[in-house]
C-alpha cells in the first residue's frame, strides 16, 4: 500500500515537472503584445501588473490582449510561468544532451576497455606465454587509460570546471551564451566519466568467475556479444541508469552554480533555472524588497533533485531484489 502510494506520487511529481517544462509550447510567446510592462518603457501604456504579484491566479486585462497568468508576473512585468517553463525545459535539455550522453557512452566504453581482459591479467603472464604483440599493446593501453582516469578522478571537479568556464568565456566571446554553457556542461560530463568507468570495471571483474560467463565462452560466443549483451545489457544496465540520473541532476545543479558565479546566461532570449535563481536572489524573502514568489525557481530545482534521488533509490531497491 505504502509502496503503491510512493510510486504513484513519484509518477505524479514527474508528470508535474513534465507539464511545467512543456507549458511554454502550449501557451505561445506573443512577444511584445504579451509584455506587461511598467508604463513608459515601451511607449505604449499597457495595463500595469504589480511587480512580483505573489502568484495570485487571475486574469489581467491589457490594452489589447487578455491572458491567463497562472503565477503572476516577475519584477519586469513578464509572465512568470512562461519564463520558468522555458528555464526548466532548456536546463533539462542542456543537461541531457550536454552531459548525460557523453557520460554514458564514453564511460561505458572506457569501463569495458579498462575492465575486460580475455584470460590473462598481468603483463608478466602475457610475456611469459609469448602472447601476440597486439595483446601486450592492448594491456599497456589499458594501464595508461586506467592511470589517466585515476588522475582525473583525484582532482576536485570544481577547479577544472571553473577554469573551463572562465577560458570558454574568454576565448569564444562572440558565440552564443547557450553554446558556451553547453560546452561547460559537456566538459563536466567528460570529466565525470571515470566514476562510471570504474563501476563497470569492478562489475566486470566481479563477474569474471561466474558460471554463465564460462558457459558463454564455451559455447563459442564472440567477445563483443559477451560484453555488450551478457555483461552490459543484463548486468550493468541498472548501474548505468542510476549514474545517468545522478549526472543529469548534478549537471542542472552545476548550471545553477555557474550562473551563480556570474558566468551563466545573461541574454534576454534564453532562460535557465540558474539564471532565474540568480536573477531573483536579490528579492528573496527576508530581505528588504523580499517576495515569497522569488523562491519558486529554487523550489523547482529542489523538486527536480528530490524526484531524481527518489527514482534512483527506488531503482536501487529493485536492483537489490
Amino acid at each position, binding site marked *: 500500500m505504502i509502496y503503491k502510494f510512493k510510486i504513484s506520487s513519484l509518477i505524479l511529481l514527474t508528470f508535474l515537472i513534465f507539464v511545467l517544462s512543456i507549458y511554454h509550447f502550449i501557451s505561445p510567446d506573443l512577444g511584445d503584445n504579451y509584455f506587461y510592462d511598467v508604463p513608459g518603457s515601451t511607449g505604449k501604456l499597457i495595463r500595469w501588473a504589480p511587480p512580483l504579484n505573489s502568484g495570485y491566479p487571475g486574469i489581467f486585462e491589457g490594452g489589447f490582449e487578455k491572458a491567463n497568468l497562472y503565477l503572476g508576473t516577475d519584477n519586469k512585468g513578464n509572465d512568470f510561468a512562461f519564463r520558468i517553463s522555458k528555464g526548466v525545459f532548456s536546463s533539462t535539455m542542456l543537461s541531457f544532451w550536454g552531459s548525460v550522453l557523453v557520460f554514458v557512452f564514453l564511460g561505458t566504453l572506457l569501463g569495458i576497455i579498462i575492465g575486460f581482459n580475455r584470460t590473462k591479467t598481468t603483463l608478466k603472464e602475457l610475456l611469459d606465454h609469448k602472447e601476440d604483440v597486439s595483446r601486450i599493446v592492448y594491456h599497456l593501453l589499458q594501464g595508461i587509460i586506467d592511470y589517466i582516469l585515476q588522475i582525473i578522478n583525484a*582532482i*576536485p571537479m*570544481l577547479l577544472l570546471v571553473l*577554469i573551463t568556464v572562465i577560458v570558454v568565456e574568454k576565448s569564444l566571446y562572440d558565440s552564443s551564451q547557450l553554446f558556451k554553457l553547453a560546452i561547460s556542461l559537456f566538459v563536466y560530463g567528460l570529466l565525470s566519466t571515470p566514476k562510471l568507468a570504474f563501476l563497470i570495471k569492478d562489475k566486470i571483474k566481479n563477474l569474471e568467475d561466474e558460471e554463465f560467463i564460462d558457459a558463454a565462452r564455451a559455447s563459442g560466443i564472440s567477445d563483443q556479444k559477451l560484453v555488450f549483451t551478457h555483461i552490459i545489457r543484463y548486468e550493468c544496465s541498472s548501474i548505468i541508469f542510476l549514474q545517468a540520473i545522478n549526472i543529469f541532476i548534478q549537471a542542472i545543479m552545476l548550471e545553477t552554480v555557474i550562473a551563480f558565479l556570474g558566468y551563466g546566461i545573461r541574454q534576454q532570449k534564453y532562460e535557465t533555472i540558474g539564471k532565474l535563481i540568480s536573477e531573483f536572489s536579490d528579492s528573496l524573502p*527576508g530581505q528588504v524588497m523580499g517576495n515569497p514568489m522569488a523562491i519558486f525557481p*529554487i523550489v523547482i530545482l529542489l523538486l527536480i533533485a*528530490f524526484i531524481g534521488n527518489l527514482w534512483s533509490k527506488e531503482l536501487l531497491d529493485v536492483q537489490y531484489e
Partner: protein
Amino acid sequence: MNIQVINKFIFGFAKILFTTLISSFVIFFVIYLFEDNSLLKGFGNNVGIAYFKWLTNFVQFNWGDVIGSNMKIVPFSSNNREIGVLNFLYRTLSYGAAGIILALASSSYLTFLSVFSYSSSSKIILKILSYISGLHIIILCFFIKIVLGHSEGFHILIIIAIAIGSNMFSDIYYYQLDQFTRLLEQDFITAARTWGDSIWKHARRSIGLGLLTQWNALVSTIFTSTIIIEYYFKVDGIGYALRKYLIKPNLSQPELPVESLFFMAISFMVIFIVLSLNLIKNMLYIRFSISGNNK
C-alpha cells in the same frame, strides 16, 4: 617499521609528484592553448618549455603577481600586501576536516545503533538525513540564507551543511549499512554476543578500515562543497580567494587577462594536498591491516 611499508611510501610519493606534474600540465595546457594573450604566454612560445619555466619558478617560490590588485603571491603571508595561498588552503582544509569528521562520526554512531542495537529512532533519523543529503550544497546554501537568515561569515550551520550536502552523508550511510549488516553475520560478532562482550570492541577495526576505503571519494566532494560554501558566505578560504582575486576581477574587467598564475598556484597545491591525503590513507590502511594480522 616494515621495509615494505617504507618502499610503498617512497613509491607512492613519487607517484604523487608525477601525477601532480601531469595534471597541472593539463590545466596549464588548457589555459595556454585557449586563452589569447594569456599571462602564461610570457614564459615562452612552446607549451612544454613554458611549463618547464613556470615549474622552475614555482619550485623557487617565485609564484608571480596578481595583476588586478597588484599583490604578490606567496606560500605564507603575514601582511596585507601579499596573498598566502597556503593560508587559504589551511582554512579550507580545517573546515573540510571538521565536516568530514562530523559526517563520519555521526553516520557510524547512528548506523551502529540501528544495526547492532536495533534502534528504530536512529533508523528514522538516518533516513531523514539521507534524504536531505540528496540535495546539492548550493540548495542548502539557499536554505540557510532564506530560512535561517545567515548571509555572511562563519556559522556552525555551514559545517553541518558540508557534512550532509551533495550526497556526502547518504554515500557514507549506504556504504556503512551494507558493511555493518555484513559484519553482523560474522562469527566473531556472534561469539562476542554470546560471551556478553562489547561488540564495539570487536567491530571497531573493521569499521575503521571501511571508513578508510571511502576516503578517496569523499575528499573530492568535500573540497567542492567547501569551496562553494566559502564562495557563497564569504568565509575565508580558497572559495573566497577565488571569488576575490579571480572571478570578480574577471567579471568586472573582462579585457584584462585571467589571473592564471594565481589559479595555477592554487590548483597545484590543491591537487598535491588531495593526493597526499590519499597517500596518508593508504599508509594508514597498510598499518591497520598489518597490525591486525600480527595479533
